[in-house]
Protein backbone atom coordinates (compact mmCIF):
# COMPACT_ATOMS: atom_id res chain seq x y z
CA UNK A 1 0.00 0.00 0.00
CA UNK A 2 1.34 3.40 -0.88
CA UNK A 3 2.60 5.79 1.77
CA UNK A 4 -0.26 8.21 1.17
CA UNK A 5 -2.81 5.55 2.16
CA UNK A 6 -0.78 4.58 5.24
CA UNK A 7 -0.89 8.17 6.43
CA UNK A 8 -4.62 8.42 5.72
CA UNK A 9 -5.25 5.18 7.62
CA UNK A 10 -3.35 6.57 10.62
CA UNK A 11 -5.59 9.61 10.66
CA UNK A 12 -8.73 7.48 10.93
CA UNK A 13 -9.89 6.09 14.26
CA UNK A 14 -10.84 2.42 14.59
CA UNK A 15 -14.49 1.26 14.53
CA UNK A 16 -15.77 4.22 12.54
CA UNK A 17 -17.72 4.68 9.30
CA UNK A 18 -15.77 5.87 6.26
CA UNK A 19 -16.83 6.92 2.77
CA UNK A 20 -14.00 6.63 0.24
CA UNK A 21 -14.80 8.97 -2.64
CA UNK A 22 -12.97 7.78 -5.73
CA UNK A 23 -11.96 4.57 -3.99
CA UNK A 24 -10.15 3.13 -7.04
CA UNK A 25 -9.52 -0.60 -6.70
CA UNK A 26 -10.47 -0.51 -3.02
CA UNK A 27 -6.95 -0.88 -1.59
CA UNK A 28 -7.50 1.68 1.16
CA UNK A 29 -11.05 0.48 1.91
CA UNK A 30 -9.93 -3.11 2.27
CA UNK A 31 -7.10 -2.09 4.57
CA UNK A 32 -9.42 -0.03 6.77
CA UNK A 33 -12.01 -2.81 6.87
CA UNK A 34 -9.56 -5.59 7.67
CA UNK A 35 -7.23 -3.81 10.06
CA UNK A 36 -9.26 -1.13 11.78
CA UNK A 37 -12.75 -2.68 11.87
CA UNK A 38 -14.07 0.20 9.84
CA UNK A 39 -17.45 0.12 8.09
CA UNK A 40 -16.53 1.36 4.62
CA UNK A 41 -18.47 2.52 1.59
CA UNK A 42 -16.97 3.55 -1.73
CA UNK A 43 -17.92 5.73 -4.66
CA UNK A 44 -16.03 5.10 -7.89
CA UNK A 45 -16.36 6.32 -11.46
CA UNK A 46 -14.63 3.44 -13.26
CA UNK A 47 -16.71 0.30 -13.91
CA UNK A 48 -13.57 -1.79 -13.92
CA UNK A 49 -12.59 -0.59 -10.48
CA UNK A 50 -16.14 -1.09 -9.18
CA UNK A 51 -15.99 -4.68 -10.35
CA UNK A 52 -12.63 -5.20 -8.65
CA UNK A 53 -14.01 -3.76 -5.40
CA UNK A 54 -17.15 -5.93 -5.56
CA UNK A 55 -14.81 -8.91 -6.00
CA UNK A 56 -13.12 -7.92 -2.73
CA UNK A 57 -16.46 -7.90 -0.96
CA UNK A 58 -16.51 -4.10 -0.66
CA UNK A 59 -19.68 -2.01 -0.82
CA UNK A 60 -18.92 0.26 -3.75
CA UNK A 61 -21.29 2.28 -5.90
CA UNK A 62 -20.52 3.31 -9.44
CA UNK A 63 -20.93 7.04 -9.64
CA UNK A 64 -19.49 10.50 -9.92
CA UNK A 65 -18.75 12.48 -6.76
CA UNK A 66 -20.17 15.70 -8.17
CA UNK A 67 -23.55 14.08 -8.86
CA UNK A 68 -23.76 11.17 -6.49
CA UNK A 69 -22.50 12.50 -3.16
CA UNK A 70 -25.88 14.16 -2.73
CA UNK A 71 -27.54 10.79 -2.22
CA UNK A 72 -25.81 10.27 1.11
CA UNK A 73 -27.62 11.70 4.13
CA UNK A 74 -26.09 14.39 6.35
CA UNK A 75 -23.37 13.19 8.71
CA UNK A 76 -23.86 9.56 7.77
CA UNK A 77 -20.11 8.95 8.03
CA UNK A 78 -17.35 9.77 10.50
CA UNK A 79 -14.86 10.41 7.70
CA UNK A 80 -14.97 11.05 3.97
CA UNK A 81 -11.73 10.42 2.06
CA UNK A 82 -10.84 12.11 -1.20
CA UNK A 83 -7.48 11.11 -2.57
CA UNK A 84 -5.90 13.22 -5.33
CA UNK A 85 -9.08 13.95 -7.24
CA UNK A 86 -10.19 17.35 -5.96
CA UNK A 87 -8.43 19.03 -8.87
CA UNK A 88 -10.44 16.99 -11.40
CA UNK A 89 -13.87 18.36 -10.43
CA UNK A 90 -15.80 21.14 -12.14
CA UNK A 91 -16.65 22.59 -8.79
CA UNK A 92 -14.15 21.54 -6.11
CA UNK A 93 -15.66 23.88 -3.52
CA UNK A 94 -19.03 22.14 -3.80
CA UNK A 95 -17.38 18.75 -3.44
CA UNK A 96 -15.56 19.86 -0.27
CA UNK A 97 -18.84 21.16 1.13
CA UNK A 98 -20.55 17.89 0.28
CA UNK A 99 -17.78 15.86 1.93
CA UNK A 100 -18.21 17.89 5.09
CA UNK A 101 -21.96 17.50 4.88
CA UNK A 102 -21.97 13.69 4.66
CA UNK A 103 -19.11 13.21 7.14
CA UNK A 104 -17.91 14.80 10.35
CA UNK A 105 -14.40 15.06 9.00
CA UNK A 106 -12.79 14.78 5.61
CA UNK A 107 -9.33 13.73 4.56
CA UNK A 108 -8.30 15.40 1.33
CA UNK A 109 -5.02 14.83 -0.45
CA UNK A 110 -3.67 17.18 -3.08
CA UNK A 111 -0.87 16.90 -5.63
CA UNK A 112 1.07 20.12 -5.06
CA UNK A 113 1.33 22.43 -8.05
CA UNK A 114 3.71 24.55 -6.03
CA UNK A 115 6.33 21.78 -5.85
CA UNK A 116 9.69 23.15 -7.04
CA UNK A 117 10.03 20.70 -9.94
CA UNK A 118 6.64 21.77 -11.24
CA UNK A 119 7.55 25.43 -10.91
CA UNK A 120 10.89 24.96 -12.65
CA UNK A 121 9.33 23.23 -15.64
CA UNK A 122 6.95 26.08 -16.20
CA UNK A 123 9.62 28.70 -15.51
CA UNK A 124 12.48 27.29 -17.60
CA UNK A 125 10.84 25.01 -20.16
CA UNK A 126 7.82 27.24 -20.60
CA UNK A 127 5.55 24.20 -20.91
CA UNK A 128 2.89 22.73 -18.64
CA UNK A 129 4.66 20.58 -16.06
CA UNK A 130 4.72 16.79 -16.24
CA UNK A 131 5.76 14.93 -13.09
CA UNK A 132 5.20 11.62 -11.33
CA UNK A 133 2.03 12.95 -9.71
CA UNK A 134 0.96 14.96 -12.78
CA UNK A 135 1.72 12.56 -15.62
CA UNK A 136 -0.65 13.88 -18.32
CA UNK A 137 -0.22 16.41 -21.09
CA UNK A 138 -2.19 19.66 -20.89
CA UNK A 139 -4.58 18.45 -23.60
CA UNK A 140 -5.57 15.17 -21.99
CA UNK A 141 -5.22 15.80 -18.28
CA UNK A 142 -8.33 15.17 -16.17
CA UNK A 143 -7.18 17.99 -13.91
CA UNK A 144 -9.26 21.14 -14.20
CA UNK A 145 -8.42 23.02 -11.03
CA UNK A 146 -4.81 22.53 -10.01
CA UNK A 147 -3.81 24.17 -6.76
CA UNK A 148 -0.82 24.43 -4.46
CA UNK A 149 -0.68 23.42 -0.82
CA UNK A 150 -0.72 27.08 0.04
CA UNK A 151 -3.82 27.63 -2.07
CA UNK A 152 -5.64 24.88 -0.19
CA UNK A 153 -4.38 26.19 3.14
CA UNK A 154 -5.71 29.65 2.29
CA UNK A 155 -8.98 28.22 0.92
CA UNK A 156 -9.66 26.53 4.25
CA UNK A 157 -9.06 29.65 6.30
CA UNK A 158 -11.18 31.75 3.93
CA UNK A 159 -14.08 29.26 4.10
CA UNK A 160 -13.79 28.73 7.87
CA UNK A 161 -12.81 25.12 7.47
CA UNK A 162 -10.75 23.80 10.36
CA UNK A 163 -7.45 22.19 9.41
CA UNK A 164 -7.01 19.54 12.11
CA UNK A 165 -3.93 18.07 10.49
CA UNK A 166 -1.80 19.22 7.56
CA UNK A 167 0.85 16.80 6.44
CA UNK A 168 3.38 17.23 3.66
CA UNK A 169 4.67 14.16 1.88
CA UNK A 170 7.91 14.07 -0.02
CA UNK A 171 9.79 10.96 -1.09
CA UNK A 172 8.13 8.80 1.59
CA UNK A 173 8.95 11.36 4.30
CA UNK A 174 6.23 13.20 6.15
CA UNK A 175 6.28 16.47 8.02
CA UNK A 176 3.67 18.77 9.47
CA UNK A 177 2.72 21.92 7.64
CA UNK A 178 2.06 25.06 9.69
CA UNK A 179 1.75 28.77 9.03
CA UNK A 180 5.45 29.32 9.66
CA UNK A 181 6.84 26.67 7.30
CA UNK A 182 4.03 26.89 4.74
CA UNK A 183 6.08 28.61 2.02
CA UNK A 184 8.89 26.12 2.39
CA UNK A 185 6.61 23.06 2.40
CA UNK A 186 4.77 24.48 -0.56
CA UNK A 187 8.04 24.39 -2.46
CA UNK A 188 9.45 21.09 -1.22
CA UNK A 189 6.45 18.71 -1.10
CA UNK A 190 4.85 16.62 -3.81
CA UNK A 191 1.68 15.91 -1.90
CA UNK A 192 -0.40 17.43 0.88
CA UNK A 193 -2.70 15.45 3.17
CA UNK A 194 -5.29 17.42 5.09
CA UNK A 195 -7.72 16.40 7.81
CA UNK A 196 -10.47 18.99 7.72
CA UNK A 197 -13.63 19.74 9.66
CA UNK A 198 -16.37 22.38 9.47
Amino acid sequence: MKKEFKIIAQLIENNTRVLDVGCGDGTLMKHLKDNKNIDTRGLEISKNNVQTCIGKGLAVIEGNAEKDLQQFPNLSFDYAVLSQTLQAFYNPEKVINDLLRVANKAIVTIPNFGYWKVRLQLLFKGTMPITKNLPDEWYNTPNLHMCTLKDFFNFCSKKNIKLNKSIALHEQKTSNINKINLNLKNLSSELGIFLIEK
Partner: protein
Amino acid sequence: MNSKENIKKIIIKKPLTLDCGKTISNYPLAYETYGKLNEKKDNAILAFHALSGDQFVSGTNPITNKNGWWSYAVGPNKAIDTNKFFVICANVIGGCMGSYGPSSIDPTTGKTIGTNFPVITINDMVNAQYNLLDFFKIDKLFSVTGGSMGGMQVLQFVANYPNKTKTAIPIACTASHSAQNIALNELGRQAIMADQNWNKGNYFNTSSSPDKGLAVARMAAHITYLSKKSLEDKFGRKLQERDDLKFSFDADFQIESYLRHQGNAFVDRFDANTYLYITRAMDYFDLIKQYNGNLSNAFKNSKTKFFIISFTSDWLYPTSENKEIVIALNASGADVGFIEITSDKGHDSFLLDIPDFLKSVKKFLEANY
Protein backbone atom coordinates in the same frame (compact mmCIF):
# COMPACT_ATOMS: atom_id res chain seq x y z
CA MET B 1 -44.97 -30.06 -25.58
CA ASN B 2 -44.27 -32.45 -22.74
CA SER B 3 -46.69 -33.14 -19.96
CA LYS B 4 -46.58 -30.91 -16.92
CA GLU B 5 -47.35 -33.89 -14.68
CA ASN B 6 -43.74 -34.49 -13.69
CA ILE B 7 -43.21 -30.96 -12.46
CA LYS B 8 -42.08 -30.85 -8.81
CA LYS B 9 -44.66 -29.27 -6.56
CA ILE B 10 -45.29 -28.61 -2.92
CA ILE B 11 -48.78 -28.09 -1.62
CA ILE B 12 -48.81 -25.10 0.68
CA LYS B 13 -51.22 -25.84 3.51
CA LYS B 14 -50.58 -22.67 5.46
CA PRO B 15 -53.27 -20.10 4.60
CA LEU B 16 -52.06 -16.96 2.83
CA THR B 17 -54.11 -13.79 2.97
CA LEU B 18 -53.63 -11.96 -0.30
CA ASP B 19 -53.43 -8.19 -0.69
CA CYS B 20 -56.88 -8.25 -2.30
CA GLY B 21 -58.30 -9.64 0.95
CA LYS B 22 -58.95 -13.22 -0.13
CA THR B 23 -57.25 -16.11 1.65
CA ILE B 24 -55.84 -19.10 -0.19
CA SER B 25 -54.62 -22.40 1.25
CA ASN B 26 -53.74 -25.91 0.03
CA TYR B 27 -52.41 -24.46 -3.18
CA PRO B 28 -49.60 -25.89 -5.33
CA LEU B 29 -46.26 -24.18 -5.79
CA ALA B 30 -44.14 -25.67 -8.57
CA TYR B 31 -40.38 -25.43 -8.18
CA GLU B 32 -37.05 -26.67 -9.48
CA THR B 33 -33.63 -26.81 -7.85
CA TYR B 34 -30.04 -26.85 -9.12
CA GLY B 35 -26.92 -27.88 -7.19
CA LYS B 36 -26.88 -29.31 -3.68
CA LEU B 37 -27.94 -27.87 -0.37
CA ASN B 38 -24.93 -28.22 1.95
CA GLU B 39 -25.11 -29.57 5.50
CA LYS B 40 -25.06 -26.15 7.11
CA LYS B 41 -27.83 -25.11 4.71
CA ASP B 42 -26.12 -21.78 4.14
CA ASN B 43 -25.59 -21.99 0.38
CA ALA B 44 -29.15 -21.56 -0.90
CA ILE B 45 -30.04 -18.93 -3.47
CA LEU B 46 -33.67 -18.20 -4.26
CA ALA B 47 -34.01 -16.97 -7.84
CA PHE B 48 -37.18 -15.16 -8.85
CA HIS B 49 -38.37 -15.30 -12.43
CA ALA B 50 -39.68 -12.47 -14.57
CA LEU B 51 -43.02 -12.05 -16.39
CA SER B 52 -42.59 -14.76 -18.99
CA GLY B 53 -40.23 -17.00 -16.99
CA ASP B 54 -40.81 -20.12 -14.93
CA GLN B 55 -39.02 -22.37 -12.45
CA PHE B 56 -36.75 -23.87 -15.13
CA VAL B 57 -33.79 -21.56 -14.65
CA SER B 58 -31.05 -23.57 -16.30
CA GLY B 59 -30.42 -26.65 -18.38
CA THR B 60 -33.19 -27.81 -20.71
CA ASN B 61 -36.71 -26.76 -19.86
CA PRO B 62 -38.57 -30.11 -19.92
CA ILE B 63 -41.77 -28.49 -21.16
CA THR B 64 -40.40 -26.35 -23.99
CA ASN B 65 -37.21 -28.33 -24.67
CA LYS B 66 -35.39 -25.01 -24.86
CA ASN B 67 -32.68 -23.65 -22.58
CA GLY B 68 -33.80 -22.39 -19.20
CA TRP B 69 -34.26 -18.61 -19.03
CA TRP B 70 -31.07 -17.98 -17.05
CA SER B 71 -28.85 -20.66 -18.56
CA TYR B 72 -26.05 -18.17 -19.14
CA ALA B 73 -25.91 -17.25 -15.47
CA VAL B 74 -26.80 -20.42 -13.58
CA GLY B 75 -24.94 -23.74 -13.80
CA PRO B 76 -21.69 -25.46 -12.90
CA ASN B 77 -18.82 -22.90 -12.82
CA LYS B 78 -21.13 -20.17 -14.11
CA ALA B 79 -21.83 -16.80 -12.45
CA ILE B 80 -24.20 -18.51 -10.04
CA ASP B 81 -22.10 -21.62 -9.64
CA THR B 82 -24.23 -24.68 -8.92
CA ASN B 83 -21.10 -26.56 -7.81
CA LYS B 84 -21.15 -24.21 -4.81
CA PHE B 85 -24.68 -22.96 -4.48
CA PHE B 86 -28.10 -24.55 -4.21
CA VAL B 87 -30.42 -22.60 -6.50
CA ILE B 88 -34.16 -22.76 -5.95
CA CYS B 89 -36.71 -21.24 -8.28
CA ALA B 90 -40.49 -21.46 -8.07
CA ASN B 91 -43.16 -20.63 -10.58
CA VAL B 92 -44.94 -17.58 -9.13
CA ILE B 93 -48.55 -17.91 -8.04
CA GLY B 94 -50.65 -16.66 -10.92
CA GLY B 95 -48.22 -18.47 -13.25
CA CYS B 96 -48.91 -21.27 -15.69
CA MET B 97 -46.11 -23.77 -15.07
CA GLY B 98 -47.69 -25.80 -12.29
CA SER B 99 -48.22 -23.23 -9.53
CA TYR B 100 -51.65 -22.06 -8.47
CA GLY B 101 -52.90 -19.80 -11.25
CA PRO B 102 -55.79 -18.99 -13.55
CA SER B 103 -55.13 -22.12 -15.61
CA SER B 104 -55.42 -24.37 -12.53
CA ILE B 105 -58.54 -26.53 -12.44
CA ASP B 106 -61.26 -25.57 -10.00
CA PRO B 107 -62.20 -28.91 -8.37
CA THR B 108 -65.77 -27.77 -7.78
CA THR B 109 -66.47 -27.13 -11.48
CA GLY B 110 -63.82 -29.21 -13.18
CA LYS B 111 -62.98 -26.18 -15.32
CA THR B 112 -60.05 -23.78 -15.32
CA ILE B 113 -60.34 -21.01 -12.75
CA GLY B 114 -59.83 -18.29 -15.38
CA THR B 115 -60.69 -14.78 -14.24
CA ASN B 116 -62.19 -16.10 -11.02
CA PHE B 117 -58.57 -16.26 -9.89
CA PRO B 118 -57.90 -13.46 -7.39
CA VAL B 119 -55.82 -10.48 -8.50
CA ILE B 120 -52.41 -11.09 -6.97
CA THR B 121 -49.46 -8.82 -6.20
CA ILE B 122 -45.68 -9.09 -6.07
CA ASN B 123 -46.07 -9.21 -2.29
CA ASP B 124 -48.39 -12.24 -2.58
CA MET B 125 -45.95 -14.01 -4.90
CA VAL B 126 -43.09 -13.46 -2.45
CA ASN B 127 -45.10 -14.55 0.59
CA ALA B 128 -46.11 -17.74 -1.20
CA GLN B 129 -42.51 -18.51 -2.14
CA TYR B 130 -41.31 -17.87 1.41
CA ASN B 131 -42.83 -21.27 2.24
CA LEU B 132 -39.94 -22.83 0.32
CA LEU B 133 -37.61 -21.94 3.22
CA ASP B 134 -39.72 -24.06 5.57
CA PHE B 135 -39.93 -26.84 3.01
CA PHE B 136 -36.16 -27.06 2.64
CA LYS B 137 -35.63 -26.26 6.36
CA ILE B 138 -33.44 -23.30 5.47
CA ASP B 139 -33.17 -20.74 8.23
CA LYS B 140 -31.42 -18.10 6.15
CA LEU B 141 -30.78 -17.90 2.43
CA PHE B 142 -27.36 -16.96 1.11
CA SER B 143 -28.90 -14.81 -1.59
CA VAL B 144 -32.06 -13.78 -3.40
CA THR B 145 -31.78 -12.61 -6.98
CA GLY B 146 -33.70 -11.96 -10.15
CA GLY B 147 -34.12 -9.49 -12.99
CA SER B 148 -37.07 -7.34 -14.00
CA MET B 149 -40.13 -8.63 -12.09
CA GLY B 150 -37.69 -11.02 -10.41
CA GLY B 151 -35.82 -7.97 -9.10
CA MET B 152 -39.05 -6.52 -7.73
CA GLN B 153 -39.57 -9.77 -5.83
CA VAL B 154 -36.03 -9.46 -4.44
CA LEU B 155 -36.85 -6.01 -3.05
CA GLN B 156 -40.16 -7.19 -1.63
CA PHE B 157 -38.52 -10.26 -0.09
CA VAL B 158 -35.97 -8.20 1.84
CA ALA B 159 -38.65 -5.72 2.90
CA ASN B 160 -40.89 -8.54 4.19
CA TYR B 161 -38.17 -10.74 5.65
CA PRO B 162 -35.30 -8.38 6.51
CA ASN B 163 -32.97 -10.98 7.98
CA LYS B 164 -33.76 -14.06 5.96
CA THR B 165 -31.07 -13.57 3.34
CA LYS B 166 -27.40 -12.66 3.64
CA THR B 167 -27.23 -10.95 0.26
CA ALA B 168 -29.59 -9.66 -2.42
CA ILE B 169 -29.04 -8.91 -6.10
CA PRO B 170 -31.93 -7.02 -7.70
CA ILE B 171 -31.22 -6.62 -11.42
CA ALA B 172 -32.73 -4.24 -14.00
CA CYS B 173 -35.79 -3.45 -11.91
CA THR B 174 -37.64 -0.71 -10.10
CA ALA B 175 -39.18 0.00 -6.71
CA SER B 176 -42.29 1.47 -8.30
CA HIS B 177 -43.75 0.53 -11.68
CA SER B 178 -43.67 3.59 -13.94
CA ALA B 179 -46.58 5.04 -15.95
CA GLN B 180 -44.76 4.05 -19.13
CA ASN B 181 -44.53 0.45 -17.98
CA ILE B 182 -48.15 0.35 -16.85
CA ALA B 183 -49.08 1.72 -20.28
CA LEU B 184 -47.11 -0.97 -22.09
CA ASN B 185 -48.65 -3.70 -19.93
CA GLU B 186 -52.12 -2.32 -20.58
CA LEU B 187 -51.43 -2.51 -24.31
CA GLY B 188 -50.70 -6.22 -23.91
CA ARG B 189 -53.77 -6.85 -21.82
CA GLN B 190 -56.03 -5.04 -24.25
CA ALA B 191 -54.61 -7.11 -27.12
CA ILE B 192 -55.56 -10.28 -25.24
CA MET B 193 -58.99 -9.04 -24.26
CA ALA B 194 -59.70 -7.86 -27.80
CA ASP B 195 -59.27 -11.43 -29.03
CA GLN B 196 -62.76 -12.97 -29.27
CA ASN B 197 -61.38 -16.26 -28.01
CA TRP B 198 -60.53 -14.64 -24.71
CA ASN B 199 -64.23 -14.74 -23.88
CA LYS B 200 -63.84 -12.84 -20.59
CA GLY B 201 -61.22 -15.37 -19.52
CA ASN B 202 -63.41 -18.42 -20.06
CA TYR B 203 -61.55 -20.51 -22.56
CA PHE B 204 -60.96 -24.14 -21.76
CA ASN B 205 -58.59 -25.67 -24.22
CA THR B 206 -55.84 -24.66 -26.55
CA SER B 207 -58.00 -24.78 -29.68
CA SER B 208 -60.12 -21.93 -28.40
CA SER B 209 -57.56 -19.89 -26.46
CA PRO B 210 -56.85 -16.25 -27.37
CA ASP B 211 -53.58 -17.03 -29.16
CA LYS B 212 -53.71 -14.05 -31.50
CA GLY B 213 -54.19 -11.57 -28.69
CA LEU B 214 -51.46 -13.14 -26.58
CA ALA B 215 -49.09 -13.20 -29.57
CA VAL B 216 -49.65 -9.47 -30.19
CA ALA B 217 -49.10 -8.77 -26.49
CA ARG B 218 -45.83 -10.68 -26.66
CA MET B 219 -44.73 -8.93 -29.84
CA ALA B 220 -45.29 -5.50 -28.30
CA ALA B 221 -43.56 -6.48 -25.09
CA HIS B 222 -40.66 -8.04 -26.93
CA ILE B 223 -39.82 -4.69 -28.56
CA THR B 224 -39.53 -3.15 -25.11
CA TYR B 225 -36.96 -5.73 -24.07
CA LEU B 226 -34.61 -4.68 -26.87
CA SER B 227 -32.99 -1.39 -27.76
CA LYS B 228 -33.01 0.69 -30.92
CA LYS B 229 -29.39 -0.18 -31.48
CA SER B 230 -29.86 -3.92 -30.99
CA LEU B 231 -32.77 -3.89 -33.47
CA GLU B 232 -30.66 -1.91 -35.92
CA ASP B 233 -27.66 -4.23 -35.54
CA LYS B 234 -29.64 -7.45 -35.75
CA PHE B 235 -32.23 -6.56 -38.40
CA GLY B 236 -31.81 -3.09 -39.84
CA ARG B 237 -34.08 -2.90 -42.88
CA LYS B 238 -33.12 -6.37 -44.06
CA LEU B 239 -35.83 -8.19 -46.01
CA GLN B 240 -37.15 -11.63 -45.14
CA GLU B 241 -36.36 -14.24 -47.82
CA ARG B 242 -37.14 -11.87 -50.67
CA ASP B 243 -35.21 -9.50 -52.90
CA ASP B 244 -37.66 -6.63 -52.92
CA LEU B 245 -40.75 -5.25 -51.21
CA LYS B 246 -43.90 -7.19 -52.10
CA PHE B 247 -46.36 -4.31 -51.74
CA SER B 248 -48.45 -6.34 -49.31
CA PHE B 249 -48.84 -6.78 -45.58
CA ASP B 250 -46.85 -9.98 -45.40
CA ALA B 251 -43.71 -9.94 -43.32
CA ASP B 252 -41.43 -8.16 -45.80
CA PHE B 253 -38.89 -7.19 -43.16
CA GLN B 254 -36.88 -9.55 -41.02
CA ILE B 255 -37.91 -7.71 -37.88
CA GLU B 256 -41.58 -8.40 -38.70
CA SER B 257 -40.93 -12.07 -39.25
CA TYR B 258 -38.90 -12.24 -36.03
CA LEU B 259 -41.64 -10.64 -33.96
CA ARG B 260 -44.31 -12.90 -35.46
CA HIS B 261 -42.16 -15.87 -34.57
CA GLN B 262 -41.69 -14.60 -31.01
CA GLY B 263 -45.43 -14.14 -30.65
CA ASN B 264 -46.32 -17.55 -32.03
CA ALA B 265 -43.71 -19.41 -30.02
CA PHE B 266 -44.92 -17.73 -26.84
CA VAL B 267 -48.54 -18.90 -27.08
CA ASP B 268 -47.38 -22.53 -27.04
CA ARG B 269 -46.02 -22.20 -23.55
CA PHE B 270 -47.95 -19.39 -21.92
CA ASP B 271 -51.47 -18.82 -20.71
CA ALA B 272 -53.22 -15.59 -21.71
CA ASN B 273 -54.95 -15.17 -18.35
CA THR B 274 -51.62 -15.59 -16.57
CA TYR B 275 -50.31 -12.76 -18.76
CA LEU B 276 -53.13 -10.54 -17.52
CA TYR B 277 -52.59 -11.44 -13.85
CA ILE B 278 -48.83 -11.12 -13.81
CA THR B 279 -48.70 -7.82 -15.68
CA ARG B 280 -51.31 -6.53 -13.22
CA ALA B 281 -49.15 -7.60 -10.30
CA MET B 282 -46.22 -5.68 -11.80
CA ASP B 283 -48.36 -2.57 -12.31
CA TYR B 284 -49.55 -2.67 -8.70
CA PHE B 285 -45.96 -2.88 -7.45
CA ASP B 286 -45.08 0.28 -5.57
CA LEU B 287 -42.74 -0.38 -2.68
CA ILE B 288 -42.38 3.36 -2.12
CA LYS B 289 -46.11 3.69 -1.44
CA GLN B 290 -46.08 0.55 0.71
CA TYR B 291 -43.62 2.37 2.95
CA ASN B 292 -45.51 5.66 3.02
CA GLY B 293 -43.41 7.48 0.50
CA ASN B 294 -40.04 6.58 2.01
CA LEU B 295 -38.34 3.65 0.32
CA SER B 296 -35.53 3.66 2.90
CA ASN B 297 -38.00 2.41 5.49
CA ALA B 298 -38.46 -0.76 3.44
CA PHE B 299 -34.87 -1.72 4.23
CA LYS B 300 -34.17 -0.06 7.56
CA ASN B 301 -34.36 -3.28 9.61
CA SER B 302 -32.23 -5.31 7.24
CA LYS B 303 -28.59 -6.33 7.46
CA THR B 304 -28.78 -7.79 3.96
CA LYS B 305 -25.90 -6.88 1.69
CA PHE B 306 -27.17 -5.52 -1.63
CA PHE B 307 -25.66 -5.45 -5.09
CA ILE B 308 -27.75 -3.57 -7.64
CA ILE B 309 -27.15 -3.90 -11.36
CA SER B 310 -28.59 -1.93 -14.28
CA PHE B 311 -27.83 -1.78 -18.01
CA THR B 312 -27.03 1.29 -20.09
CA SER B 313 -29.49 0.56 -22.91
CA ASP B 314 -32.40 -0.65 -20.73
CA TRP B 315 -35.18 1.89 -21.29
CA LEU B 316 -37.86 -0.25 -19.64
CA TYR B 317 -36.21 -0.26 -16.21
CA PRO B 318 -33.57 2.42 -16.73
CA THR B 319 -30.52 3.05 -14.57
CA SER B 320 -32.24 6.06 -12.97
CA GLU B 321 -34.93 3.80 -11.46
CA ASN B 322 -32.36 1.30 -10.24
CA LYS B 323 -30.37 4.13 -8.73
CA GLU B 324 -33.39 5.25 -6.73
CA ILE B 325 -33.10 1.96 -4.90
CA VAL B 326 -29.38 2.56 -4.32
CA ILE B 327 -30.14 6.01 -2.92
CA ALA B 328 -32.81 4.65 -0.58
CA LEU B 329 -30.45 1.96 0.65
CA ASN B 330 -27.68 4.49 1.22
CA ALA B 331 -30.08 6.69 3.13
CA SER B 332 -30.82 3.79 5.46
CA GLY B 333 -27.10 3.12 5.92
CA ALA B 334 -27.37 -0.27 4.22
CA ASP B 335 -24.46 -2.15 2.73
CA VAL B 336 -24.92 -1.57 -0.99
CA GLY B 337 -22.89 -1.89 -4.16
CA PHE B 338 -24.02 -0.73 -7.57
CA ILE B 339 -22.84 -1.05 -11.14
CA GLU B 340 -24.28 0.00 -14.49
CA ILE B 341 -23.23 -2.53 -17.11
CA THR B 342 -22.52 -1.25 -20.61
CA SER B 343 -24.67 -3.20 -23.06
CA ASP B 344 -26.52 -2.45 -26.29
CA LYS B 345 -28.96 -5.28 -25.75
CA GLY B 346 -31.64 -3.41 -23.80
CA HIS B 347 -33.63 -4.83 -20.90
CA ASP B 348 -33.01 -8.38 -22.11
CA SER B 349 -29.32 -7.96 -21.20
CA PHE B 350 -29.81 -9.69 -17.87
CA LEU B 351 -30.79 -12.90 -19.69
CA LEU B 352 -27.92 -12.79 -22.17
CA ASP B 353 -24.26 -13.64 -22.31
CA ILE B 354 -22.90 -10.25 -21.21
CA PRO B 355 -19.48 -11.11 -19.73
CA ASP B 356 -19.16 -7.95 -17.63
CA PHE B 357 -22.53 -8.60 -16.05
CA LEU B 358 -21.95 -12.28 -15.37
CA LYS B 359 -18.49 -11.58 -13.98
CA SER B 360 -19.89 -8.97 -11.60
CA VAL B 361 -22.51 -11.35 -10.23
CA LYS B 362 -19.94 -14.11 -9.79
CA LYS B 363 -17.46 -11.83 -8.02
CA PHE B 364 -20.09 -10.50 -5.65
CA LEU B 365 -21.42 -13.92 -4.69
CA GLU B 366 -18.02 -15.46 -4.21
CA ALA B 367 -16.59 -12.53 -2.26
CA ASN B 368 -19.46 -12.82 0.21
CA TYR B 369 -19.70 -16.58 0.55
